[in-house]
C-alpha cells in the first residue's frame, strides 16, 4: 500500500500543528464556536449527543495492520473500547473530548493517517472498491488514481468552502461495489486499448458521472464525460468543482448538493459548462505527470504471492478434517471471494454478528486480533467495505480453515455477508445529533428476529439498509429493503422503501406508504419476507421477485397488521 514520503508526512504533521492551534484558540475563547465549527468538521470532528465524534480517514478503505493497531489503541485510550466502521470506509470514535483531539491526530500522523476532510463542505475521503487490486472481475486497479486524487484534493484551497459536502467514488471493476452512481462524482476507470492519448495514458481512461446522491433527493449520477485520459483528471475535476463552487445553491442547505445543480441545469448543460471551463485548464500543469504516477503506482504492486495450486471447494473443505464442515462451507460460500491469483482468496470478516450493539462496530480487542490475522494471513493489510465489514484480501486458500477458526474466536466469522442480517446502518439517534430516530435497536431487533442461518441462506442475497434520518448515511435508498427513521411530532417512526439496489443495476427504492412504529418493524420485515418466500420462483432473488411482482403484494403484507398511523411524515434533519 501507499507509503508517505517527506511531502505527505510534512503536510499531515503541519496539519496537526494547525489544528492544535485552532483548538487552543477555541478553548481560550478567541475563536467562537460558530466559526470553529467548519474548522473542526474539516478535521472530522462532529459534536454529537454525548460527546465529540472523530471520523478518521481510511483512504479508499485501505489499512495496514499497524494502522489498525493504532486505531485500536485510540479506541482504548481516548474512547470507550470500540470504533465504528462507516459506509464511506472510514472509522468513527464516539466518545472524544476536544482537548484530546490534537493528541489523537498526532498519534494518527505517526502511522500515516489523518482526519482531514472527513467532514465539512469540502472534498471528502475518496472511496473505492474494497477488492481493488485483487478482484477477479477487475479492469483497472483503482488505487493509484485514488491516491493521486487524495493528494490533489487534500487542503485544496479553492474548494475548501463548497456549497456542500462533495464525495468521490472510483470504480474499476465489472461489478460496481462502490455505489458509484450515488456519489457527487463517480469515476469509472477503464482500459481503453483503442485510446490514442499519447504514451502517458497507457489506455487508462475515466468516465465521469456527476450529480448522484442520496439524502432527501436521491438521484443517480449522469454520465457527463467519456474516455477522459487519467492524467487529465485534475484539470477536469477543477473545472467541474469550479462550476459547482460558483453556481451551486447556497441559499438552502437542502438544495446545495451538486445533484440539485445538475438537475436544474440538466446533465447536458452542466457538462457543457464544465467543458467550457475545462477548455482553459486542460493543457495546464495541474494535470498528473509521469513522475507522480511512478511515485504512487510503485506502492501498489502485487505482494509476494507464492506459486500455489488453485484449490477446489472440496479440497478447501477437506482441510477441516470432517469437523464443522457445514458451518465452514457456509462461510466459504458467503464470506470468501474469488481472487486474481491462483491459490488465493479474499475473506470478508463480518462485523455484523446478530444482536450486538451496532453493525460495523469493532472492539479494541477485535481490532488488535484482526490486525494480527492480517499479519499472519494477508501481508499485513486490510480493507474496509462500504457495507461496514473488513476484508483480508490476500489469503492462501490452504489457510482458509485456520483463518476461519481464528476469526470465529473473535466473533467475526458469521457467514452472513450479503444476507438479510448483513445490515448497513448509521449510528442513528443513539449517537448522532442529526438523527430523527434510532437505527441500532432496529438493526438489532431484525437480526434477532432472523437469527437462523438455515433460513437466511434459504432467502439468499438481500440487502437491508437503515438510516436514522434523511441524510441517508445508512444508504437506505439503495437497500432492497430500506428503513428510514422519521420524526412525527417528536415520536420516532420508520418509513419502508423497497426495490433499491446497488451495483451495476443501481436503483433508488420506492416508499411503500405511511411509516411504522419501531416495535412494528420486525413484523413488517417478516411479512415482506414471507411474501417473497410465498411467491418466488426457483432461484429467484428477492430483488428479482420484487421486480416481477411489483410493490402491491409486498405493500399489502407490510400493512396487514399495522397500528394507527400518524400524520404527515417530517423528514427534517440537518447534516454537516
Amino acid at each position: 500500500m501507499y507509503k508517505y514520503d517527506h511531502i505527505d508526512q510534512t503536510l499531515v504533521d503541519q496539519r496537526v500543528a494547525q489544528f492544535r492551534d485552532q483548538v487552543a484558540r477555541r478553548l481560550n475563547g478567541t475563536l467562537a464556536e460558530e466559526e470553529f465549527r467548519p474548522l473542526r468538521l474539516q478535521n472530522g470532528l462532529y459534536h454529537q449527543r454525548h460527546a465529540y465524534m472523530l471520523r478518521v480517514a481510511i483512504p479508499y478503505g485501505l489499512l495496514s495492520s499497524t494502522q489498525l493497531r493504532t486505531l485500536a489503541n485510540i479506541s482504548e485510550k481516548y474512547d470507550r473500547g470500540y470504533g465504528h466502521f462507516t459506509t464511506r470506509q472510514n472509522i468513527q470514535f464516539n466518545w472524544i473530548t476536544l482537548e484530546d483531539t490534537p493528541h489523537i491526530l498526532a498519534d494518527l500522523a505517526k502511522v500515516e493517517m489523518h482526519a482531514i476532510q472527513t467532514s465539512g463542505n469540502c472534498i471528502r475521503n475518496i472511496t473505492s472498491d474494497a477488492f481493488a487490486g485483487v478482484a477477479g472481475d477487475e479492469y483497472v486497479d483503482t488505487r493509484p488514481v485514488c491516491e493521486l486524487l487524495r493528494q490533489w484534493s487534500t487542503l485544496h484551497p479553492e474548494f475548501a468552502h463548497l456549497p456542500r459536502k462533495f464525495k468521490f467514488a472510483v470504480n474499476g471493476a465489472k461489478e460496481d461495489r462502490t455505489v458509484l452512481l450515488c456519489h457527487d462524482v463517480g469515476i469509472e476507470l477503464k482500459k481503453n486499448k483503442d485510446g490514442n492519448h499519447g504514451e502517458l495514458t497507457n489506455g487508462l481512461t475515466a468516465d465521469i458521472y456527476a450529480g448522484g446522491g442520496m439524502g432527501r433527493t436521491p438521484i443517480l449520477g449522469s454520465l457527463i464525460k467519456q474516455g477522459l485520459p487519467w492524467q487529465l483528471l485534475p484539470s477536469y475535476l477543477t473545472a467541474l468543482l469550479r462550476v459547482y463552487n460558483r453556481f451551486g445553491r447556497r441559499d438552502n442547505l437542502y438544495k446545495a448538493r451538486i445533484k440539485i445543480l445538475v438537475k436544474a441545469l440538466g446533465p447536458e448543460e452542466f457538462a457543457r459548462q464544465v467543458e467550457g471551463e475545462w477548455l482553459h485548464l486542460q493543457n495546464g500543469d495541474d494535470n498528473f505527470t509521469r513522475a507522480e504516477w511512478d511515485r504512487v503506482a510503485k506502492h501498489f504492486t502485487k505482494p509476494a504471492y507464492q506459486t500455489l495450486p488453485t484449490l477446489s471447494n472440496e479440497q478447501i473443505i477437506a482441510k477441516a478434517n470432517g469437523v464443522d464442515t457445514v458451518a465452514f462451507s457456509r462461510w466459504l460460500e458467503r464470506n470468501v471471494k474469488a481472487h486474481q491469483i491462483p491459490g488465493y482468496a479474499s475473506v470478508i470478516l463480518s462485523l455484523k454478528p446478530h444482536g450486538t450493539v451496532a453493525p460495523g462496530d469493532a472492539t479494541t480487542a477485535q481490532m488488535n486480533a484482526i490486525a494480527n490475522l492480517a499479519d499472519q494471513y494477508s501481508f499485513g493489510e486490510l480493507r474496509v467495505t462500504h457495507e461496514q465489514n473488513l476484508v483480508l484480501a490476500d489469503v492462501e486458500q490452504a489457510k482458509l480453515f485456520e483463518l476461519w477458526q481464528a476469526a470465529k474466536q473473535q466473533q467475526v466469522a458469521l457467514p452472513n455477508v450479503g444476507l438479510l442480517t448483513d445490515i448497513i446502518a448509521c449510528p442513528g439517534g443513539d449517537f448522532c445529533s442529526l438523527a430523527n430516530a434510532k437505527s441500532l435497536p432496529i438493526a438489532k431487533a431484525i437480526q434477532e428476529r432472523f437469527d437462523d442461518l438455515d433460513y437466511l441462506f434459504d432467502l439468499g442475497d438481500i440487502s437491508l439498509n437503515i438510516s436514522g434520518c434523511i441524510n441517508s448515511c445508512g444508504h437506505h435508498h439503495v437497500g432492497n429493503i430500506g428503513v428510514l427513521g422519521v420524526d412525527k411530532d417528536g415520536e420516532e417512526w420508520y418509513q419502508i422503501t423497497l426495490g433499491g439496489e446497488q451495483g451495476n443495476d443501481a436503483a433508488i427504492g420506492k416508499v411503500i406508504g405511511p411509516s411504522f412504529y419501531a416495535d412494528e418493524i420486525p413484523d413488517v420485515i417478516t411479512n415482506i419476507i414471507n411474501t417473497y418466500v410465498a411467491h418466488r420462483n426457483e432461484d429467484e432473488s428477492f430483488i428479482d421477485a420484487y421486480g416481477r411482482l411489483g410493490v402491491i403484494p409486498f405493500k399489502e403484507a407490510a400493512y396487514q397488521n399495522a397500528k394507527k398511523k400518524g400524520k404527515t411524515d417530517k423528514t427534517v434533519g440537518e447534516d454537516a
Partner: protein
Amino acid sequence: MSNSNPTKLIQSHAQVLLFPREGKPFLAPNEWQVWDVQDESGLPAEYANSKVLVPFTWWRSQLDSRHEGSDVLTKAKKGQIGVWFAADDDILQHAELIESGKQYWPLVAAYFPLFRDGRSFSTAALLRDRLGWSKEIRMIGDVLIDQLLQGARVGFDSFALRHDQNLDIALKQFDLFTVTTQNSWRGKRSLLAIS
C-alpha cells in the same frame, strides 16, 4: 445590487494585511474604504477625495449612463477607484469590462458575505488565471484568520480582516505549511517544485 451581500458591509480592521506573491506578509494602513450602494444617489461626497472600492455592478451601471460616468472616470483616472466583486458576480460574463478596468483600478476586491461561502475563492482564481489581473486582489467582508491561507493560495495578496480578528495571529498563518499537493497562484505543488 446582489442580495447575497448584507446592506451593511462587514467592518474591517484599520490595518490591512499585505502578502505580495514574492515576499513576506506585513501590515499596512488601510487606505481604501469600501462603499456599497444604499440608494439611487451616487457616490457620497465623503468619498470625494479618498480611495474607494465601489461595487462592480455599480461601476458597470455608471459606464452605461452617460451623465454620471464622466465623474467616476475622472476620479478613477486619479487612481482613487477600485471595484469589489460580490460573491455572485459572474466575472466571466464581463471579461471585456474588467479588461478595460485594468487601466483605471489600482486594485480589485472580492467580498465574502460569510466566512464559509467559498465563491470568492473561485473569483480570485479566475481573475488571476483567466482574466490576467496582475495587480492587488483584496479579500474583504467576513475575512477570518483561518481563511487566509486558502485566500493567499488562490490569488489574494491583500486581506482586510474583520475588525475583531487578531492581526498578530493572522500574520503567522502563512508559514504553517511548507508543502502543498496542488498548484496554486503562489507556486507549483511540492513534487513539481523539487523535481
